[in-house]
């Protein structure tokens, strides 16, 4: 208990509260001196809340000690290159420079955020089970719906960072990331961002959806500003994490690991990091302009002052569309990474799969306005954006065809990670196939802002990242802990969640085509959707139960899991050639790459050779 109370996390939260209060008091004092109204509906005025939130977020990071070494360097003091972590669980609640600890910190934070976001979904899904308002007010419904969106998005971003942080240095034979302190900083800005996002609940909520379109977002309660601030703070994590990862892959690969001998996941991680490094700024900018419009009366998006609400949508989607690929590319990379292990065959067309990741990332920058086909932007612009959008289908298709060719004539084994790989492919396929009608403009005029879209992107998000994320957790859990996850519980998790999820999203598409708008708290019983919604709600509960089983499995496997220190999946990847859990500085003996990563079925081949002479061959 004492270890918990003195941890960096608790210290940071305390500092955040104090910083928030001091910042708010500072602005309140100035307002008082200027003769302005010092208090408002939520005690402090909006400028006081916003300034306090900024000070609070910075205080959190300072309070944890994630910036201490930088302060010392600024003063000319030396610090040790490495910092040793304590052996127990408390290292996960304190600032660590070890990429594996940070990776697990990210992953656990992601799971917590996703559970919170999922809880919000269950609340309003229950409300939707029947037409009419059951137990939520309209404002509460909109707030939960909006928070579900943004908490899940941040959750997935954090989950992506978790998997990349944990795996990338290990896979390329590095002892850590390029910039371990920046890495720690990138993680420690996430908890204050999560606090900011959740604080919207206490400050009137926000009824705009996660898109926060003005003018609606200009009129929303103070909670809106906490949402903007939370996203801006979380954005730092993405930008700096992307920078760190690119530097790591470019500079720290082991001897012999040329571009086309990297594990395929590295290509996906690079493609994702290019997007987070260069696009995240735009959503921060868009939200900051609305913040200034609210606080300072600047009319960026106010037509009465010569502003343009559509400009916001361009800025917003310039990040928020590529962001989808930030989620999906690592997920698809995980699928490509795990599949050869369980099929015992090389990944079909490695170079094409690698290039398709970069292709998706680059084309993804040119498609943002397909979210705006009905927005009232220049109507001729819709045509070029349709061409670029449909183009995404080409590299995505390459991935699907290559996976099928990889499976063909393999010796397929299907333990839990492989189940989630296959489930991810099927679910992502449905998400992908429901995409083209949104791209061919005429059909999108009907589909836009309906439940069809809701079903479409839940399929892409779940198939593209959530399923692979589960696969990765089941697969690398032994690497992180030296124990295996319970296989039976894993299978129950999969077989409960997958059919329920498919039912949920297919019914979403069904009612969407028939005329169900998205983001509505209530629907007309005359539409005849009550039964569909009831089934969707039941499916939602089944998913929640499956997740609960997964969490129980994590707990029980951590406590009593079967010991697994060896190469449990019989993989060629370097991290499995050393005992689990991974040593603190990864490889005690360095290795060099001497062959192709996925040459399963080629007798006598090896991917890596350790300096002491041991090789990874077929086990």
């Amino acid at each position, binding site marked *: 208990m004492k270890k918990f109370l003195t941890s960096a996390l608790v210290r940071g939260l305390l500092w955040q509260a104090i910083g928030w209060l001091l910042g708010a008091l500072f602005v309140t004092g100035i307002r008082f001196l200027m003769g302005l109204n010092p208090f408002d509906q939520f005690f402090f005025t909006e400028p006081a809340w916003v300034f306090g939130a900024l000070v609070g977020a910075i205080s959190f990071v300072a309070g944890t000690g994630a910036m201490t070494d930088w302060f010392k360097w600024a003063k000319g003091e030396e610090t040790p290159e490495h910092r040793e972590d304590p052996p127990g669980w408390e290292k996960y609640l304190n600032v660590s420079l070890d990429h594996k600890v940070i990776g697990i910190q990210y992953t656990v934070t992601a799971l917590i955020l996703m559970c919170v976001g999922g809880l919000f979904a269950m609340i309003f899904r229950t409300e939707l089970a029947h037409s009419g308002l059951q137990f939520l007010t*309209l*404002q509460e419904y*909109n707030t939960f719906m909006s928070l579900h969106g943004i908490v899940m998005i941040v959750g997935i971003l954090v989950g992506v960072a978790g998997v990349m942080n944990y795996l990338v240095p290990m896979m390329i034979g590095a002892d850590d990331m390029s910039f371990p302190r920046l890495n720690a900083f990138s993680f420690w800005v996430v908890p204050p961002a999560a606090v900011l996002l959740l604080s919207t609940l206490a400050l009137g909520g926000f009824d705009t*959806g996660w*898109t926060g*379109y003005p003018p*609606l977002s200009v*009129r929303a309660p103070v909670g809106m500003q906490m949402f903007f601030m939370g996203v801006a703070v979380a954005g730092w994590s993405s930008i700096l994490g992307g920078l760190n990862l690119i530097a790591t892959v470019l500079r720290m690969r082991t001897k012999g690991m040329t571009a086309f001998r990297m594990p395929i996941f590295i290509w996906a991680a690079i493609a994702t990091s290019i997007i987070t490094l260069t696009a995240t700024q735009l959503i921060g900018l868009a939200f900051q302009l609305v913040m200034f419009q609210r606080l300072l009366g600047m009319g960026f998006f106010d*037509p*009465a002052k010569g502003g343009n*609400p559509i400009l916001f949508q361009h800025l917003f989607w310039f990040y928020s569309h590529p962001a989808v690929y930030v989620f999906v590319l690592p997920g698809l990379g995980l699928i490509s990474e795990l599949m050869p292990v369980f*099929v*015992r*065959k*090389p990944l*079909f*067309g490695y170079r*094409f799969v690698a290039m398709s990741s970069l292709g998706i990332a680059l084309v993804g920058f040119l498609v943002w306005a397909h979210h705006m086909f*009905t*927005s*009232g932007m220049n109507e001729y612009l819709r045509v070029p954006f*349709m*061409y670029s959008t449909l183009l995404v*289908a*080409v590299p995505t*298709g*390459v991935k*699907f065809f*290559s996976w099928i*060719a990889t*499976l*063909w*004539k*393999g010796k*397929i084994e*299907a333990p839990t990670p492989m189940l989630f790989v*296959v489930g991810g*492919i099927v679910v992502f396929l449905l998400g992908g*196939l429901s995409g083209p*009608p949104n791209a*061919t*403009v*005429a*059909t999108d*005029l*009907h589909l*836009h*802002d*309906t439940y069809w879209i809701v079903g479409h992107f839940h399929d892409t998000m779940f198939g593209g990242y959530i399923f692979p994320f589960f696969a990765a957790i089941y697969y690398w859990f032994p690497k992180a802990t030296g124990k295996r996850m319970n296989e039976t519980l894993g299978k129950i998790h999969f077989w409960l969640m997958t059919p329920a999820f498919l039912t949920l999203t297919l019914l979403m598409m069904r009612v969407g*085509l*028939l*005329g169900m*708008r998205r983001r*509505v708290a209530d*629907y*007309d019983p005359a539409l005849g959707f009550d039964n569909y919604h009831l089934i969707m709600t039941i499916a939602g509960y089944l998913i929640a139960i499956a997740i609960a089983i997964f969490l129980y499995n994590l707990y029980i496997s951590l406590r009593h899991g079967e010991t697994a220190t060896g190469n449990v999946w019989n993989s060629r990847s370097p991290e499995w050639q050393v005992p689990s859990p991974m040593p603190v500085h990864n490889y005690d003996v360095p290795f060099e790459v001497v062959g192709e990563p996925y*040459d*399963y*079925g080629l007798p006598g081949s090896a991917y890596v050779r350790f300096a002491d002479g041991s090789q990874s061959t*077929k086990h």
Partner: protein
Amino acid sequence: MRHFVIVGVLVIIVFLATYFGLTALKLMPVEASAQSIVVDWMWNLDFVVMCFLFALIVVPLVYSLIVFRRRKGDTSDGEHIEGNTKLEITWTVIPLITVLVFAYLGAYSLGETMAVDPNALEISVTARQWSWQFDYPEGFTSNELHLPVNRQVVLNMTSLDVIHAFWVPQFRIRQDILPGRVTNYRITPILIGNYTVMCSQLCGTSHSYMTAPVIVTSQADYDAWVQSQVTAAQAAAAAGGPANGKLLVQKYGCLGCHTTDGTKLVGPTWLGLYQSQVKLSDGRTVTADQAYLVESIVSPSAKIVNGFPDNVMPKTFGTALTQSQINDIVSYIETLK
């Protein structure tokens, strides 16, 4: 070779079963506009490809999982096949061509839905949180959109506050409505019937309830309705007083937030409001007399009733309404006891 033949046959079977099975479920609402026929034509082309690709991926996937599964006791690896450049190029180039064809078809069908009839009927649409107002060229205003069948209509739409969107599922077309700008919605109804326009761009708390009836009738019925509306508007304006007030509160969408039956919506109900004691958000209590009601219409933020949000009601009614119209509305509220 045997595997390829089996999978090929299964792909065709699954493709046809998926396409015809799902189409039989009637995926789309009825086609009530000329534009909906174009949209559904494009949808159907998309859907054929969707069903085919679904079969093309899922069939070999499931087939492989079953046929190429690891047998008990077998510890050997699969065949060492690293790839096939010709195959990779094939499944890059064929989708690329397909995509270009579909982009062309998408542009073509978009153009068809935008086809202009110079004799189109023009109606002005005003959207606000959370109601619709339709202004007809004959000079009257309605909360219902009546349209004659088989004649193109252009809705010139604008918003008084946030972004809204006009969508009638049976018409298929959707267009956002922006503050400070006019956007157009062009449609040719082809099926007589009652439909609903729904706001489909999240516009705040009561977004779900921002709907209005859309009634497509024969030209003769439409003309009769227009005539009756013109007569009613003239009569009410001439008479003034509560009758005109009742017409005005419908016309300006007041009833989207204020009820006349005591129900609490976004704004306070008018039932029993006149001469009642109103508790304000700043703690004061005032009497809802005539002056209070006029002030609340003209400058809604002056006094906020306790428990209700500020900055919801438009502040434009002072200029949108004449003094006598405001008096008529107040006189109508006074009758609600």
